């Protein structure tokens, strides 16, 4: 129980910091001073102090989408063993359910975008849903590759088995699945080269186009939930492929190590991602499927490797 609370605190409190860290790294590499890693928190504080606006003729879908988006991210933060594998909620949801929950978040936001009835809202929704549809096969086949050798899709089981047999991490199966997952996570989290979170240019917007009508506390919730989703995605990658440090016992010391390891791993992944993004430009929307098809091939190779190398 304490582990789940810790994970929620880490994800909710730490995700804006991760965003700030990534922006700061990017700024430094581009020769700018940057706003500091606390800037996302300052933005959130400001937005939480402002009134939310409901545009006329929008329905409950628009009104409640930020709450559902936030709730899905929160649930994933509870369920995935980021800090500890000893969790009471382990049997409730497995890797498939986690993926589906994250997809549910995207879907609610897409519906909210459509609900506004603006051209931008529909455009963003259409693009986000297209990417979601193409990401799904890679995601599930990569999960298949990871779970075949363990014989379970339960996250805690996968993590424990890697901890018991560290040699598995450098097997071709794991490496191929890791690269495949990395690509789809970049696509799902809306990072370069699939979507540029810093742009409001109509030709390229995906995520930003759906949330244009949100203001005040609603916008704050959406921004926080998006940051949490990024953290959760990177955390998932770290948990599945570099599980060291995750507490397997419920002692305070192990939990402290787990918290520290989670922060370091996700922070490091964030820095690497931000540094990589400096060298990338956004690809055209219609080149994204090629990227995703490539990652699907890698995932399929991972599954076949798990059979032929077994």
């Amino acid at each position, binding site marked *: 129980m304490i582990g789940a609370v810790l994970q929620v605190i880490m994800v909710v409190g730490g995700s804006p910091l991760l965003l700030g860290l990534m922006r700061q790294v990017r700024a430094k590499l581009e020769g700018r001073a940057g706003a500091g890693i606390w800037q996302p928190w300052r933005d959130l504080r400001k937005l*939480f*102090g402002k*009134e939310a606006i*409901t545009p*006329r*003729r929008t329905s409950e*879908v628009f009104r409640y989408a930020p709450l559902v988006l*936030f*709730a*899905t991210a*929160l*649930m994933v933060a509870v369920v995935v063993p980021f800090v500890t594998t000893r969790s009471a909620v382990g*049997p*409730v*949801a*497995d890797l*498939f*359910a986690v993926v*589906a*929950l994250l*997809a*549910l978040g995207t879907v609610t936001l*897409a*519906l909210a975008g*459509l*609900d*506004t*009835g*603006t*051209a931008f*809202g*529909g*455009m963003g*929704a*259409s693009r986000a*849903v*297209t990417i979601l*549809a*193409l990401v799904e*096969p890679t995601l*599930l086949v990569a999960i*298949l590759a990871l779970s*075949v050798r363990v*014989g379970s*899709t*339960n996250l805690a089981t996968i993590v424990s088995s890697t901890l018991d047999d560290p040699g598995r991490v450098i097997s071709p199966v794991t490496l191929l699945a890791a690269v495949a997952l990395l690509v789809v996570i970049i696509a799902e989290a809306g990072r370069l080269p699939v979507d540029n979170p810093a742009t409001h240019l109509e030709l390229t917007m995906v995520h930003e186009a759906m949330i*244009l*009508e949100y*203001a*005040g506390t609603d916008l*704050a*919730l959406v921004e926080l939930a998006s940051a949490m989703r990024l953290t959760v995605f990177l955390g998932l990658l770290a948990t599945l492929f570099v599980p060291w440090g995750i507490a397997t016992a419920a002692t305070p010391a192990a939990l402290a190590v787990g918290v520290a390891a989670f922060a370091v791993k996700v922070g490091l992944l964030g820095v690497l991602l931000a540094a990589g993004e400096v060298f990338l430009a956004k690809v055209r*929307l*219609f080149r994204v*499927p090629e990227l995703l098809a490539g990652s699907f091939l890698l995932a*399929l190779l991972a599954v076949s490797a*798990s*059979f*032929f190398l*077994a």
Partner: protein
Amino acid sequence: MTVTMVAFGLALGLCLAAVLAAAVSPPERRSLVVGVGTAGSGVAAVVAGVAAMAGSGFSLVLPWVLPLAGVRLALDPLGGLFVAVVGGVAAVAGVYGIGYSGHGLNGRAVQALLPGFVAAMLLVPAADGVGTFLVCWELMAVTSLLLVLAEHRRRSEVGEAGLWYGVMTHLGFVAILVGLLTFAAHAGSDSFAALRSAHLAPALASVVFVATLVGFAAKAGIAPLHAWLPRAHPEAPSHVSALMSAGMVNLGVYGIVRVGADLLGGGSRWWWPLVLLLGAVSAVYGILQAAISSDLKRLLGYSTTENMGLVLIGVGAAGMFAADGNRALAGLALAAALLHVVNHAAFKTLLFTAAGSVLHATGTRDLDALGGLRPGMPVTTALFGMGALAASALPPGAAFVSEWLLLQSLVHGLPPSGVGTAILLPLAVAAIALTAGLSVATFVKAFGVGFLAKPRSEAAARATESPRTMLAGMGLAGLVCVLLAVAPMVVLPGVGAVAGGVTGAADPVVRGAITLELSTVAGSLSPLLLALALLAGVVAAAGAVRAVGARHARRTARLWDCGGGPLTARMEYTATSFAEPLQRVFDNVLEPEDDVDVTHARESAYLVESVEYRRRVPDRIERRLYRPVVAVVAAWGRAGRLLATGSVHRYLGYGFYAVTGVLILLAVTR
């Protein structure tokens, strides 16, 4: 007299009573009487089906009803499941039909056919002999064909749809007829019990299986035999669409399981990969067509092809595992497939009835002309939203649970027994995943474009809520959807027992009351707790927002839209534009046809007066596979016409030469 027999008899009796009542009752009472009768018969059928699943089946031989073979009826757990599903759909369709029949569907024939169709569907899974089965199957085909044609006076497309359906369903019937009669001839008896104990040569068994597979797959709308489905289902009245799409197609699956796994006992190893491949192709192709379709009911029809494909993936996987001797896993895969049948029936009933409600209120099913239905039709909008969630394999939805079970069975099928399995299973997982992703896109489009946003036509803007009986029918289906989504354990033990009985798995497939645990392999999921956690998360977030940032109340204002002027509905994204990226991604598969006509001004070719752009996305399988066949048949028809010129001398000549030819033939062969 068991409870099953009484309930089943009651269900059939009520159907018969409704048929008679439709013929004699006055027009203003007719739809009410028929609706109540059909709904009551549906409830009785659910009771009979559940009782049969619980193990109290019956078996009945009535030699005096039909000449030669007589009628053999029996209800075992497998048949009981399908009777219960058909009964559930019929109960909803009956209630819904009372209000829906108000406009133009109150004719004596249409009203009498509806309970007749239900009775035929209830009889198919209860048939216990080849003759009985074929008669019931044909009765079901004919009644449904006539119901599809109910509105043929109003729309010209109905006739074409009926023609496609009539031809294809009868070609399928011929295939089943050939398969089952061959089987019965070699078994030496008409009853299913005799077929079960007959030992067929492997080659002959394969012929029987493939012939029946063709017929049953055509009924289930499996690609490439699906061409009738997206035509006939949209053109039928909506409660009939629900009965066909949620009830009748399942009987194709029933036929495959009954003949392949039960009567032929599993048969050759290569049958089941074939079934799995057919399922995977249908699932992906069906949902892809649904994703780009902008006709609401056509979209739902293609989604039926998709879902039946998913079911066949489960059935095929179950057969493969059983052939490998892994009976426990086979039971799991079949349980997943059968649970998906139940779930699909629930959400497809809801979606088709809600679509009918929209059609009733606006007169159109074109998504590009809908939108903005939330203010006028709040209940229909909410119910369609629930159905869309259930259909799109997201938690907390019903299809999520069955697809999760299906994926679990495939995951545990690896490490596989052979190279073929090693290639097939990951591809099946990928197909399911792509299907899940595209179904999300499809239903976001159907709900988001069709119901939310601003109305795109006058009719949509003026839409008002449907009559109360229609809402009651939809509400009933919605309730079942929610129940299946959060508490699948209500039906799973029964479904698992049916699957275990067919595959020979000894243990129950799943256990647990709140957390669903797989008993033979590792894996657990708790749909109820997931739904509750989601609710708790939403409430917690709302509370936190109120606590942190409640300095100002929420305010209603004009749409910002980047500061631009007020937008008209023409500037919104439509269903077509929403699906455009997907259509472009799958360009090679879909092969859309673009047509650009540029009219130049008279003064100069450099000045353009108007540009006309048209895009059609025809069903590619239909174009490639059916058009040539239809063309050949048409050519034969034209050639045949040359023989008949109208000259009596010529016809007498034909007769003379034919008789002479026969006599010569007899003289030579004797």
